[in-house]
């Protein structure tokens, strides 16, 4: 561009030259922009197949699943008359008789269409005990003969109980916060405020706390085991360090399932761990390590140890040993030198390793399923259970939603303060 700058001496020529240069410059930069736009499109086109495939095979499934947590039209679709009749109900006390009649008609309709069981199940999720009441009421409506539907409805106390109609009215809204709140053991009060669900129905907060506890325990254990080993590997001669690194990488490269299988063998009542504990005198009898919290934490610590260790090691090996020597020569005690010179420098690596392990632990599924007992199942196991056993997709979706929010938030912190590059292993 500097070649286009005219001399400053000849003013008129300068003016002419500038305008000519301007148009030149404009057309050149326009052409450049066009060319660059084409290049950008070309690079985008190269990446497009994978991005499209990921959107289809991964993005849409996740969005679809999460939408199930807040969108549930089952009740609204099954109870059209009731939804209409409840349209002008203020939510206080009982709705008028028209709502009872409408519900009776909707219930009979669903029975006739064969969707009665699905409706009973959907209502039961919001109104514990509704399943049997729906089926019972439908039987009476069908077999009642000349008894008017309104009378049948009024004769079943369940339909006049407090809480029944607010729950039905809530259910007729397709967009719902019910499942997300349930996943946190919360619900809407009759007066429109949030409240804790009664203790006998509360399960999920405990499961989330358990998941966090196990993740924290495993993170701490991997740090205690991994930090000294990382330090040792970073300070021994190259050849020996390579051998030690292989000892870390071999388990790292073995699949989680295989390592979990190995631990199910080791943790048996007559397995090697119990043999060792007895021989060392740490236990006087054989312990039940399988299906226990401690067994789960031991196995998860083994699986996660390389994830914590490797980011720490990758920072430690960049620190010159001369720094510690300098600190000693300036009169620092070993502990002071370690705390004030070494630790601040390896801290990012420690953070990266620990955060990574904590995040990965939140999503553990295989190991708790095979080694944990009934009271050691983590949040992922509950999600799988709601899909496989309870067939309650909405609850599975709500738990997934919350687990994903925690995971992404922690990962956001990770990317923000440590950078994505720290994810690289070795």
């Amino acid at each position: 561009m500097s070649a286009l700058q005219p001399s400053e001496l000849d003013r008129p020529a300068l003016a002419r030259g500038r305008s000519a240069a301007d148009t030149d410059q404009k057309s050149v930069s326009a052409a450049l922009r066009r060319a660059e736009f084409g290049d950008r499109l070309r690079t985008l086109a190269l990446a497009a197949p994978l991005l499209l495939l990921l959107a289809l095979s991964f993005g849409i499934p996740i969005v679809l699943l999460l939408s199930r947590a807040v969108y549930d039209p089952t009740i609204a679709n099954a109870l059209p008359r009731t939804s209409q009749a409840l349209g002008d109900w203020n939510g206080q006390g009982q709705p008028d008789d028209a709502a009872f009649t409408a519900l009776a008609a909707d219930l009979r309709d669903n029975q006739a269409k064969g969707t009665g069981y699905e409706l009973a199940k959907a209502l039961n999720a919001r109104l514990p005990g509704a399943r049997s009441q729906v089926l019972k009421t439908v039987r009476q409506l069908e077999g009642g003969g000349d008894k008017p539907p309104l009378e049948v409805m009024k004769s079943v106390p369940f339909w006049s109980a407090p809480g029944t109609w607010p729950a039905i009215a809530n259910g007729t809204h397709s967009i719902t916060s019910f499942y997300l709140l349930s996943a946190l053991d919360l619900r809407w009060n009759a007066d429109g405020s949030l409240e804790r669900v009664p203790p006998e129905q509360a399960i999920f907060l405990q499961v989330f706390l358990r998941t966090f506890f196990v993740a924290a325990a495993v993170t701490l254990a991997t740090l205690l085991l991994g930090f000294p080993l990382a330090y040792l590997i970073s300070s021994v001669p190259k050849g020996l360090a390579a051998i030690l690194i292989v000892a870390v990488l071999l388990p790292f490269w073995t699949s989680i399932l295989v390592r979990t299988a190995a631990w199910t063998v080791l943790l048996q009542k007559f397995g090697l761990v119990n043999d060792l504990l007895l021989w060392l005198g740490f236990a006087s009898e054989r312990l039940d390590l399988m299906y226990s919290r401690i067994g789960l934490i031991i196995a998860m610590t083994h699986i996660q140890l390389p994830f914590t260790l490797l980011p720490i090691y990758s920072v430690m090996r960049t620190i010159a040993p001369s720094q510690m020597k300098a600190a000693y020569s300036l009169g620092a005690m070993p502990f002071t030198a370690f705390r004030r010179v070494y630790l601040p420098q390896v801290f990012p690596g420690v953070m990266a390793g620990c955060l990574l392990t904590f995040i990965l632990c939140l999503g553990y599924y295989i190991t708790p399923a095979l080694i944990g007992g009934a009271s050691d199942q983590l949040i992922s196991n509950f999600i799988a259970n709601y899909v496989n056993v309870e067939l309650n997709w909405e609850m599975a979706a709500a738990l997934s939603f919350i687990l994903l929010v925690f995971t992404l938030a922690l990962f956001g912190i990770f990317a923000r303060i440590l950078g994505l590059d720290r994810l690289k292993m070795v």
Partner: protein
Amino acid sequence: MLLSPYPTLGERIRITLLWLWCGLVILFLLVPILIPVPLSFNSGAFFIFPLEGLSTRWYEVVLGTQRWQSAIGNSLIVAFGTTMIATTLGTLTAIALSDEKFPGRRIVMPLLLSPLIVPVVITAVGSYLFYARVGLASTYAGIILAHTALASPFVVVTVGASLTGFDRNLMRAAAISGARPLTAFLRVMLPLILPGVLSGAAFAFVTSFDEVVVVQFLASAGQRTMPLEMFIGLREKLSPAITAAATLMMALSIVLLIVANLLARRGQGRSAKGN
């Protein structure tokens, strides 16, 4: 170096304790993965040491019975399919991302890595929900698609690393010499980044071959893979055949990942030299 030239007693004690602790940690790391190996050659039906005798009967079960054979077959179908798609598309994407003209890399990169971060149960359940609607549940194509999402980040990262040392001027030189883009890619770029591509392929293969959660939700009874057969076996009844299967799987992943890492190192080394 650990010890100073004139170590004090305190220093000696500290270093000894460090070695002792690290020795125990290394035992903790290695013993569990080595334990299934001798057990898989045990002739008895129990997991108790000392071993009763040497035999290959459990390998005959894994390699000889119809149930395990079909599982190995399914694993190979899924892993090869995943490797082909993930390697091809992942390499193209890595090339695109390594170009400084690529728009929005800061957004695309985290999106590409997200399958590694999202808890795998969520991926599995979501795939099950969506694939059932579009007729992909209980198909090999469905499992391969889901596995491609999990495996492709490894290809993008490995090939991306081998491209950091690749000199783009070589492509310009090829273009000036009259090579069409495809020819330039096949004859100039691909040979130089091949170690990275092969390394990515090995990572993709292992990722798919070891995966069990997605398969658990998407596979029909006839599509059970080797890890799923192991998972079911571990839940039902512990049989020594599982230790044989575990040993085989471990051997495969370790061999492939050693190759992958050597290739990745070589790829980076070569491009670095070219720089």
